C-alpha cells in the first residue's frame, strides 16, 4: 500500500523525463543552428539579400504600380518566401553534409525525429526572420500596410508547411549527386497546395475579403501542415539511415 504512491511518483517522474530529454535534444539542435548562424551570419544574409533582389526583380518584371500591387502583392510575397526559403534549406543541410556534421548528429544517442524537428524548427526560425524583415521593407517600398493579424497567421501556417516538407526533402537532396539543383525540383511540385492556399488566403486578408471565403484556405493550410508533419516524422528515419 505504501509503495503504491512511490511507484506512481517514479513513473510520473520518468515520463516527463523522457519528454524532457527529447525536448532537450531538439533544443540542442536548434541552438546549434542558431549559434552557428550568429557567428557566421552567412545563411540569413544570403537569404535576405536574395529575398530583396527577388522583390526588386518583380518590381520591374510586373511593373508594381498601385493597381497591379493590389492583386499581385500576396503572390510576390510568397514567391519571394519560397525562393529565399529554398536557398536557406539548401544551405542549412549542405553545411551539415559538407563538414560531416550530419553523421555526428546521427551518432548522438537521441531519437532521430528530435534531429528532424530540431532542424525544422531552426529552418522555420530563419524563415520567420526573413519574413519579419521582408514585410516592413515591402510595406515601406510600396506604401501598403502588410501587418495584418490575418496575414501573419497565414504566413506562419504557410511557412510551417513549406519548412516541414522542405527540411525532409533537403535532407534527401544533399545526399544526391545533383544536390542544390534537386531541392526546388523535388519541393515545388509537392508544396503547390501550400502556395495556392497561402497566396489566396493572403490576398484575401489584404483585400479585406469576407472571412467565410478565407476559412477554407486556412483549413487547407492546417490540414497540409498536420499531414506532412506526421508523414515527415514517420519517414525521416529512412532518409538518414546509412
Amino acid at each position, binding site marked *: 500500500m505504501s509503495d503504491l504512491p512511490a511507484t506512481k511518483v517514479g513513473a510520473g517522474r520518468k515520463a516527463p523525463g523522457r519528454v524532457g530529454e527529447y525536448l532537450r535534444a531538439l533544443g540542442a539542435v536548434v541552438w546549434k543552428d542558431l549559434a552557428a548562424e550568429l557567428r557566421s551570419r552567412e545563411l540569413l544574409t544570403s537569404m535576405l539579400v536574395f529575398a530583396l533582389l527577388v522583390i526588386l526583380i518583380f518590381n520591374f518584371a510586373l511593373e508594381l504600380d498601385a493597381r497591379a500591387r493590389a492583386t499581385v502583392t500576396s503572390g510576390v510575397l510568397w514567391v519571394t518566401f519560397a525562393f529565399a526559403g529554398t536557398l536557406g534549406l539548401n544551405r542549412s543541410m549542405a553545411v551539415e553534409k559538407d563538414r560531416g556534421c550530419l553523421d555526428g548528429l546521427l551518432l548522438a544517442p537521441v531519437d532521430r525525429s528530435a534531429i528532424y524537428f530540431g532542424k525544422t524548427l531552426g529552418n522555420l526560425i530563419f524563415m520567420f526572420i526573413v519574413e519579419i524583415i521582408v514585410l516592413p521593407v515591402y510595406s515601406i517600398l510600396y506604401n501598403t500596410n502588410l501587418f495584418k493579424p490575418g496575414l501573419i497567421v497565414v504566413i506562419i501556417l504557410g511557412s510551417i508547411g513549406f519548412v516541414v516538407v522542405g527540411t525532409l526533402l533537403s535532407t*534527401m537532396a544533399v545526399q544526391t549527386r545533383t*544536390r542544390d539543383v534537386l531541392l526546388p*525540383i523535388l519541393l515545388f511540385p*509537392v508544396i*503547390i497546395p501550400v502556395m495556392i492556399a497561402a497566396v489566396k488566403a493572403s490576398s484575401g486578408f489584404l483585400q479585406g475579403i469576407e472571412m467565410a471565403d478565407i476559412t477554407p484556405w486556412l483549413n487547407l493550410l492546417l490540414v497540409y501542415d498536420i499531414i*506532412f508533419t506526421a508523414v515527415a516524422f514517420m*519517414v525521416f528515419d*529512412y532518409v538518414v539511415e546509412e
Partner: protein
Amino acid sequence: MESDVKPKLLTVLDIITVLLLVIATAMVFFYAPMEAVMGQVQRVFYFHVAAGWVGMLGFLVAAIVGVVYLRTANRKWDIVGVSAVEIGMVFALINIITGAIWARPIWNTWWTWDPRLTTATIMELIYAAYLLLRQGIEDPDRRARFGAVYAIIGFLSVPLTFFSARLFRTIHPVVIGTNQPGATGAFDMTPLMLQTFLFSLLAFSIIFVDLLWHRIRLGRLADRVEQLKLKTAE
C-alpha cells in the same frame, strides 16, 4: 536465382493484351455510337479516361509499394515502384495529350487551368522529380529508400493539389468562357458507350499489368547485370 527465360504466362498475357487493345480500338470506332453534339472527337474519351486511370493506378501502386519497401527493405518492391511510376507517367502523358485533342474543338482551347488539368500536370512534374531524384543517387539502397519516401509524399500531395486547384476555381470566377469541368463537353452515356468505356478500362488495366510485369523483369535483369559487373570487377 530465377531463370532468364521469359515465362509462358507472360507471353500469353502479351497476346491477350494485344487482342484486347485491338478489340477496344474497334469498339471505340465501330461499336460505340457517335455522340450527337460533339461528333467523332468524342471517341477520344474512351482511351482518354482509361489512360488517366492507368496513370493514377501506377502512382498509387508506387506509393503502396513505397510503404511496403520501407517496412521490408526488400529490393523487389523498389523495382515494382520505379516500374509503376514509369508506366504511370507514360499513361498520364497520354491522358493529357488526348485531353488536349478533345479540348481543342469542344472547349475551343488546347489548355485551360481547370483543376483536373492542373493536377495532372503537377503530377507529371512530381514523378519527373522522382526519376531525377533516383538518377542522382548511386547507392541502390539509398536510391530505393529515397524513391519510396518521395513516392509516398508525392502521392499524398496530389489530392491536396486537386482540392486547392478546385477551390481556386470555385472562389475565383471563370472569366473567359464556361470552363467548368463537366459543364462543356458533358454527355450522357448510352449503354453501348458505357460498354465500350468499361471495356477500354479493362483493356488498359490489362495493358498496365502486362507492361508492369515486363518492366519488373527488366529491372531484375538490370539488377543482375549490375551485380555481375561488380563481381567481374573484383
